[in-house]
């Protein structure tokens, strides 16, 4: 995946996440596999892994913002983008969203913060 395609994927993922947060979780099907999961690598969220298309991973009213200037492809099948927000209680939660891909669809997203 080249950089341009990676940026486009991240943009589409954020759009789908926010659409799901505003209404239909099925919006995620456009960018993620049905069995995709979200996990959290930040203190106080340790060990939490849940289906991506769920209100655990996409709380109603949540808002995910991504930094399209900070999109990288560190390895085949992985795209990393800076993010802020996601709807959890920790208001200062921002860092990197690590998207793992099966072809062009997301199978796992890991939200990680330093």
């Amino acid at each position, binding site marked *: 995946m080249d950089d341009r395609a990676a940026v486009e994927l991240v943009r589409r993922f954020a759009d789908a996440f926010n659409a799901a947060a505003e209404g239909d979780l099925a919006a995620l099907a456009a960018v993620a596999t049905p069995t995709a999961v979200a996990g959290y690598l930040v203190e106080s969220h*340790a060990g939490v892994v849940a289906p991506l298309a769920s209100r655990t991973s996409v709380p109603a009213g949540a808002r995910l913002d991504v930094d399209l200037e900070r999109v990288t492809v*560190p390895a085949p099948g992985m795209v990393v983008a800076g993010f802020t927000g996601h709807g959890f209680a920790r208001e200062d939660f921002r860092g990197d969203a690590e998207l793992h891909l099966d072809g062009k669809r997301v199978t796992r997203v890991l939200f990680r913060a330093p």
Partner: protein
Amino acid sequence: MLRERDAEITGTVGRRVFIKGLAATGALVGGLAAGPALAADAATTRSGRRRPPPFSQGWTSQPGLFVDDVSLPDGFAYDVVASYRDPIGGGETFGYNNDFIAYFPLVDERGHQEGLLWVNHEYPDPFFIHGNTDPATKTPGQIALEQYAVGGAVIRVQRKGDGPWKLKRDRRYARRITGTGPRIRMTGAGVGDPGNPARWAPVPDWTDGSVANCAGGISAWGTALSAEENWADYATTYGWGPDFAAVNNGGLGWVLEVDPMDPDWTPRKHTNLGRLRHENATVWAREGKHLVVYTGDDARDKFLYKYVSSGRYRRAHGRRNSRLFEDGQLWVAEFAPASQDETVRSGTGRWHQVEMSPSALVDPDTWVRAQPWFNPATFQLNRPEDAEIDRFDNSLYTALTNNTDDPHGSIRRLAEEGRDPTADTFTWSDVAVGGPDPAQARGFSSPDNLVFDRLGNLWMVTDISSSSLNDPARPYAYHRNNGIFMIRVGGPDAGVAFRFGSVPNEAESTGPIWTPREDTMFLAIQHPGEETSVRGGVRGDPTTYTSYWPHGNKTTGENPSEPLPSVIAIRRS
């Protein structure tokens, strides 16, 4: 030869004596990394028994390691004292993710070293506790396991002669505070007055249990203080549900006080220290003076606070001094840089009063931001973590761990005016700045917990996020695993961090604390292998776990096994 009477420095002895003691040992000579190792010099007690030399001597700065073990300089060893699920006595077991440790010595007539440890248990890891990582589908039983795994523990530990430290199962002292009990009394102005709408607050007179217990402090009268940090996350993140939040949230986010020596003394939470993501509660108490407690709000762009009691500390009052928490004033720190030049990391500062009303104490951050004197540029900090007081001059050292634009963090020193912790103003400077130092093959990132040794060296442990460790795309790759450091606060090496060791994969070390002799450092190894659940680990198949510590070693492939948060005792081998 350093004799005991020279080395035993009390809080009433000044810097002049301290330097004299150091000179006797040669400890101020040269830098550990710059020259040969300092000669380790054993001390002799009055009875003639040899004691090992101070921890600060006899080793050189260690390289950072990506090894699934606690790695220490030659001549040092560690004992695993207590791990998750270990029976501690009285039918109780040790909790998960040990953090802050406080040591309370017991008298052992046979001459053994023996004491109680108060240990915080900060947060659960559902994968290793019961296996269900999805908050939405947890059963009540799984939630109960998590609630039991957090809070705190009192355990009894013993060392016979020069042997290892061991957990001693105990019926008299050993106990647990969990996420749901016991009953805890709320004190202070934050509780509010239910009969007065102007002073109402959603804080009950009593609450049950404690969560998110991060760092803490030790009072001068022998109680442990435990800081509730990420208290707001449990109902949602861990799926404990809105019922838990509705019943418990008013009682969370405070500083808990426990007497490890007396199970019958009712624990209490002190609302006068405010409700925030408390990292710590660092106590300054001197005879006849007002009590001072410093506490950091560990989140990005939050503040440093201090509490000053109305009454005065009296040693003879013993545990009754706890009432000093119930009447006093909370302050918040403002840091004015000496220059607009961002490379200048020093300046002056002043403390601003926080209104001692229920509404302000329940959310001091919001209250502070609404004040006309508030300025984000001078109040907001890069996640204030632990703080420790230099007993030689009463200055405060606080770890500012990192922020979006400061990935490596720093350690900041506050010198209160007149060396008086109750002062309204102070000066400050960043005395140690994080980041790699390739020329010296050293450097640190994300400083977290701190402790001074009696010679005045500042010991620091790092908390780089598991997901950022050893990632070549991240700025922390140089660091390898999280580490243990010693920092000189004076002399030619002032501000230099000498690496004492590294900790297992994905772990951070927390809660460093000395025995009174300082021949042992207790340390908590928290969350080894915590990426396992999100990296596709399969519960029951240890080969898929990202750490095998303490019973195995992922790096060498030895004994694949469940990683267990554990308290260790570091000593000379």
